[in-house]
């Protein structure tokens, strides 16, 4: 058994996993209409390859990747493309994103598939390529294209694959259920990823509040000596990639560096499971498991949902929400989740939970009061930052100060806000500061761009004036020579 190293800080929020942990995964009845945003991943939005009115089969490519860090999209069910247009994004801003709107026909007609080769007979590159072509992105919420991560990690010489089943966010149980019910598939996906990485070892890390999942996974991986299941002490954010790497190896990811710099690569269990589906059955990422939970939900459940289904469809299937009780609607967990602008937003690849929390659960009974400098946020910050100082500088808009205190190392885990006795929304300050700094960078880029445009325009005018002058000179010369000829003729 491996010795664990642990990580700095962290908090112990009430798990609340009992609400949904014993509910087996159920399939959501197919909604009549699916809304698939073109941007569900880190990087550039996908480019649609279908047109309105076109019939598509389940699993057919509907948008291809654009650029290196991007992911394609596939039809979650068979049907007709109703339109390609803007639809509200599952994001706190409530702003629209372009989306493919698909009317399902209920036939669930799969695209014809060719017989698949054994994944282990393929080269590591080809495996990564197929993972990319299946549109698989990090399903723990980071949404980073998995293929890019795999090939970069292989080039960096990663020696250990970490399969992240920690699921440290309260309420969320989708990974727990996936591990309990589909353990063999996850182990097979792990073996496929090990082949893609050419790495000798895999660790499956699970928090000890999921003893059933740990036992089932241990039983499932008994045949494969390369894979080991580890039980982590439950403490938020044990499932964050950097903290997980530190717990397992004792190595700290350098500031501004990547996890792979330490020789370990972290993939969520959902991502590994999707890789298994793609390589064994040729099925792209078109559905995912979502936990619907929270005190305002009538019957919390774990659902297998086609991507693009509306949050409203999920909530209706779970008996609806008590409107007067629901103080906050979140996509993701209560610590890092996005507040949703409404229930008419689609489920995307990174959606692990839909939570409808009551006022008591959301902690809205406590208004924020001034900072008393108790230092609790400093104690719990897993990155070793000074949240109280950073928020003060963000409040006074001292951008250099915020940056020098390590804003870029903050991962918005929310531990500081959870620990704060004054209930100050610290992560919101950091999000505000990050947005402001990004805006400044954008404006600087724009002003250089505009300067270049003005210079080009100036150059164009000069070129035109020169061309005009030359043409005039030529005309004059021609006239002169004509005049001379006329004179000669006269003579």
């Amino acid at each position, binding site marked *: 058994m491996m010795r664990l190293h642990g990580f700095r800080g962290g908090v112990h929020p009430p798990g609340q996993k009992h609400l949904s942990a014993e509910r087996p995964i159920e399939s959501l009845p197919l909604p009549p209409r699916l809304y698939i945003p073109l*941007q569900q991943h880190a990087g550039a939005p996908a480019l649609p390859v279908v047109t309105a009115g076109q019939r598509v089969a389940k699993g057919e490519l509907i948008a291809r990747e654009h650029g290196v860090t991007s992911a394609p999209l596939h039809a979650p069910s068979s049907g007709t493309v109703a339109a390609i247009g803007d639809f509200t*994004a599952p*994001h*706190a*801003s409530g*702003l*629209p*994103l372009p989306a493919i709107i698909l009317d399902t026909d209920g036939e669930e007609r799969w695209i014809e598939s060719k017989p698949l080769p054994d994944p282990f007979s393929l080269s590591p590159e080809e495996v990564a390529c197929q993972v990319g072509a299946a549109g698989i992105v990090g399903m723990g919420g980071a949404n980073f294209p998995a293929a890019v991560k795999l090939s970069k990690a292989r080039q960096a010489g990663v020696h250990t694959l970490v399969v992240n089943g920690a699921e440290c966010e309260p309420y969320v149980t989708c990974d727990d259920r996936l591990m309990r019910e589909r353990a063999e598939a996850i182990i097979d996906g792990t073996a496929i990823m090990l082949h893609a990485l050419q790495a000798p070892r895999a660790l499956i890390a699970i928090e000890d509040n999921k003893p059933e999942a740990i036992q089932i996974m241990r039983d499932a991986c008994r045949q494969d000596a390369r894979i080991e299941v580890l039980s982590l002490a439950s403490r938020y954010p044990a499932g964050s990639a950097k903290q997980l790497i530190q717990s397992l190896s004792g190595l700290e990811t350098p500031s501004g560096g990547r996890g792979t710099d330490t020789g370990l690569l972290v993939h969520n269990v959902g991502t590994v499971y999707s890789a298994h589906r793609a390589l064994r059955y040729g099925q792209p990422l078109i559905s995912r498991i979502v936990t619907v939970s929270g005190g305002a939900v009538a019957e919390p459940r774990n659902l297998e949902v086609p991507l693009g289904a509306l949050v409203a469809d999920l909530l209706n299937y779970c008996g609806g929400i008590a409107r007067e009780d629901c103080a906050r609607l979140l996509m993701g967990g209560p610590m890092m989740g996005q507040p949703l602008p409404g229930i008419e937003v689609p489920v995307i690849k990174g959606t692990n939970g839909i939570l409808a929390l009551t006022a008591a659960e959301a902690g809205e009974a406590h208004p*924020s*009061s*001034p*900072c008393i400098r108790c230092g609790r946020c400093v104690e719990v910050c897993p990155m070793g930052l000074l949240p109280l100082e950073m*928020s*003060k500088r*963000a*409040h006074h808009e001292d951008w250099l100060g915020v940056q020098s205190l390590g804003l870029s190392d903050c991962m918005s885990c929310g531990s500081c806000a959870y620990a704060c006795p004054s209930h*100050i*929304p610290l992560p*919101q*300050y950091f*999000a*505000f500061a*990050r*947005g*402001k700094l*990004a*805006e*400044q960078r*954008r*404006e*600087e880029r*724009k*002003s250089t*761009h*505009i*300067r270049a*445009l*003005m210079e*080009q*325009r100036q150059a164009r005018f000069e070129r035109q004036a020169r061309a005009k002058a030359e043409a005039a000179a030529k005309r004059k010369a021609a006239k002169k020579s004509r005049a001379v000829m006329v004179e000669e003729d006269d003579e």
Partner: protein
Amino acid sequence: MIAAITTLTSLGLLLGMLLSLAARFFQVPDNALREELLELLPGVNCGQCGYPGCGGAADALIAGTASPALCPPGGRVLAQSLASKLGRTLGDAGDGPPLLAEIDESRCIGCAHCGKRCPTDAIVGASKQIHFVFQEACMGCGLCIEVCPTECLQLRPQTPTFATWYWPKPVLQGV
């Protein structure tokens, strides 16, 4: 007679030479700060600051009669760099989203005057067709507004998109 002409001519030549040498060797360089400010300013001489062009604005900034936030097209970024160059504080001036030109498509007659006037080629459109402003290239100088015969151009605050939206500052009594 000849002597007088010779004397005066040589005197003139000599003094002229002396003057031109003096102009060359005792030349006072142009105000270096002015050059630096002109480098920062957009240089389109739109006149929105109320001074005759960017040169006039630079002079006013050096004299201290103008605020560093005088240039609407430059926005917050320019105001900040001007303030730090001049060693002055900015205060709250120049805040808010930048104003950008927008075309009311129902009133555009496609006269193509605005596109010719735009210093950054941000407006496109063939004649007798509806024109369009590229927000990425517009700096909100407002020159196009003056030439529009139907007043269909307006400066509007830039609306946030999915890529540019960010969380607002928390409203609290104090941190």
